[in-house]
């Protein structure tokens, strides 16, 4: 029995080592680092305990980042669902060219982020962008709109992100739609249910669990999204208006050169996500029990 247990542990050891080295250690090291005042590149550090956390509690920039991050992730998730779910429902129907369209809809998700962002920045540029050109030609606006300026940069970022990531919702939701037994719809039809009632009483209950996963994953991914946000404004002046938490953490680590502060922000982000995920699970389970 003991020998069997030992064999079991030995077989598990590579996985445990990998998990420990690649997941647990970085998290713990980051938490440890957050207790130091440490230069990002030079060997200068001093233990400061929770000072970095106390600093952020009163740091206006931190709270701005939380606000921008929440607006960005909230709006993009809602819009990804608003676009992705109807698109999946449409692509679940039979019509000519459906297979082609299913391929096309994946396109934004397949292209590299840098390409997607450059493309959108080019489209939205207020000097030579196509969007302004079309709006001016159609007489919708009388002067070019500064889509990448202070007032619209967040919306431009949201549109770019929704365009880039809604195919994930489409693919995942469509996969689940295809497994719903057709008899359920037939029974609903026999009972006189129209399209809307079939959606509400058959499709939605059947796809609740996949929607739960989609919202959970996309929330985590959008809240921690760095590349799209960074590429949209980089370190430009206007970046101030879309400086989400991951970007602020990056800035603290690599432009302020304060590795301890950057690590503290990463820990805060991690804790915020765990708390939000736990709350989300709780609400979902309660609703599931009720239904």
């Amino acid at each position, binding site marked *: 029995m003991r020998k069997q247990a030992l064999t079991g542990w030995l077989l598990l050891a590579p996985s445990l080592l990998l998990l420990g080295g690649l997941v647990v250690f970085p998290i713990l090291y980051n938490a440890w680092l957050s207790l130091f005042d440490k230069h990002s590149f030079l060997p200068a550090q001093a233990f400061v305990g929770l000072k970095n956390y106390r600093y952020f509690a009163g740091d206006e920039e931190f709270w701005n980042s939380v606000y921008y991050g929440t607006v960005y992730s909230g709006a993009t998730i809602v819009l990804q669902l608003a676009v992705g779910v109807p698109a999946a429902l449409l692509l679940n129907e039979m019509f000519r060219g459906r297979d082609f369209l299913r391929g096309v809809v994946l396109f934004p998700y397949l292209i590299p982020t840098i390409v997607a962002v450059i493309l959108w920045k080019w489209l939205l540029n207020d*000097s030579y962008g196509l969007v302004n050109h079309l709006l001016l030609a159609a007489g919708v606006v009388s002067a070019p709109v500064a889509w990448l300026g*202070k007032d619209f940069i967040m919306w431009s970022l949201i549109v770019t992100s929704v365009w880039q990531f809604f195919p994930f919702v489409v693919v995942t939701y469509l996969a689940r739609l295809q497994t719903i037994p057709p008899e359920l719809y037939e029974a609903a039809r026999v009972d006189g249910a129209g399209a809307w009632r079939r959606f509400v009483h058959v499709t939605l209950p059947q796809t609740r669990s996949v929607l739960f996963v989609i919202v959970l994953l996309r929330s985590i991914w959008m809240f921690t999204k760095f590349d799209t946000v960074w590429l949209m404004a980089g370190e430009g002046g206007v970046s101030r208006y879309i400086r989400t938490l991951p970007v602020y953490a990056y800035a603290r680590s690599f432009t302020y050169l304060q590795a301890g502060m950057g690590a503290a922000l990463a820990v805060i982000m991690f804790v915020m996500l765990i708390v939000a995920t736990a709350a989300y699970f709780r609400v979902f389970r309660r609703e599931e029990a009720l239904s």
Partner: protein
Amino acid sequence: MAISRRHFLAGTAVLTGTAMLGRAPAALGQIRELQVWHTEVEPQTVKVIQDTSIAEFERKFPGFKVKQQALGWGDLNTKLLASIAAGSPPDLTHLNPFMTASLYVKKLLVPMDELIRAIGENDIHEATLKLQYFDGKYYGVTHAMGSTYFAERRDLREKKGIKPPETYDDMLKLAAALTEGGRYAVQMPGEKLYMGFVHPAEWLAGNGGSWVDPKTYRPQLNSQAMIDALEYAQKLNKFMPGGWSGQKYLDTLAALSTGKIAMAYLSGARTIGYIEKYAPENMRDPEHFMPMLRPHGPSGRVGISALDGENWAVFTQSKYPNEAFEFLKLFYKKEYYLQYCHSVPIHLTPIFKSMLNDPEYLANPRIKKWRPWHDTMVSGLKAGRFLPIGFSRPEDNLVPFLAELDGSGIVADMVVEVMVGGKNPKAEADKAQRRAEELLTQLGFKRWS
């Protein structure tokens, strides 16, 4: 198929031997690599360096191979600091002058007095000679000088009968006059480095201000000099395209060349390349496009522009410091250095006074055609109208935290809130002052009480 133990061992021995032979030159130290990083990314410049100084260096030092890496400004600082942290910096690199003091105080730089004397200490232009001079020793030498200024549509200004502006008020009047018919007067680059560091440094320098108190290091972001400058910038913003803060330096050059704006706020001789490529054919000349020096503020005497000129530096951790200096001697050899400067004419103006009016240097076709741009550079140098990038006063080379102040984005946030956000300059300056004081305290540079 079964393999016998003997065959397996023999095969392994052959493979190991082959692999070791492949590594032999490096293992025996026959090929040593001299790592050289610089910020001149134009392909023709990279080629000139390769074909001149590198080629001769490799002939003179057969055991060495020079590996040059051209990096953009934005990439240089982070990559350099990471390499220093890893204990393997390049043997020779460009540094932004505002970083040099920070590295000097950490004792990371090797002095280069002997090199400076060898290439001609007395001939190096005063605008650059002592930028990296600490405690009686030289720790850097500028590779070339390129001044920055406005690039203006001279023809449009002259049509209005307006002289180049001397003061902030003159500039605002000019901007108002040139904003018409869907064209904006001026556009500033939206990158943080420029609008959040280079230009605010110029504003302070041209208005009698400074980043910090020289004795206590206390930031001076809410000084009257900065508040005046912010008020000026806020007014100037009315004459800029709405989305300027989301656009980049090269966008401004394209906008100038194609007639969307009348002045590019940040410009250097590199602008000529854009003009020659994108401006209407009959306008690609100094009659239409000219440099224009900065105006000064109410408390300043003359307007100041940034002088773009990184310096070469050798680290104490460099593997081959002596060879790095030998390489630099070849780099500054007259015939090679001329070719280097001619690879981007005027933008790469020589650091040697004797070369500024050297007929051989001036014979370059682009310099001939755009001679007024060269003359603006030379007259600006004579009149003391330039300070190195990010400097608010000449002594800023001794301030060891300018890189961190730039990196923090505190100044950029202040500028963008005032210019784009339309917020009160004094309130934003006070906020930036608080943040900067916190930052310098965290970095251990607080000397004020």
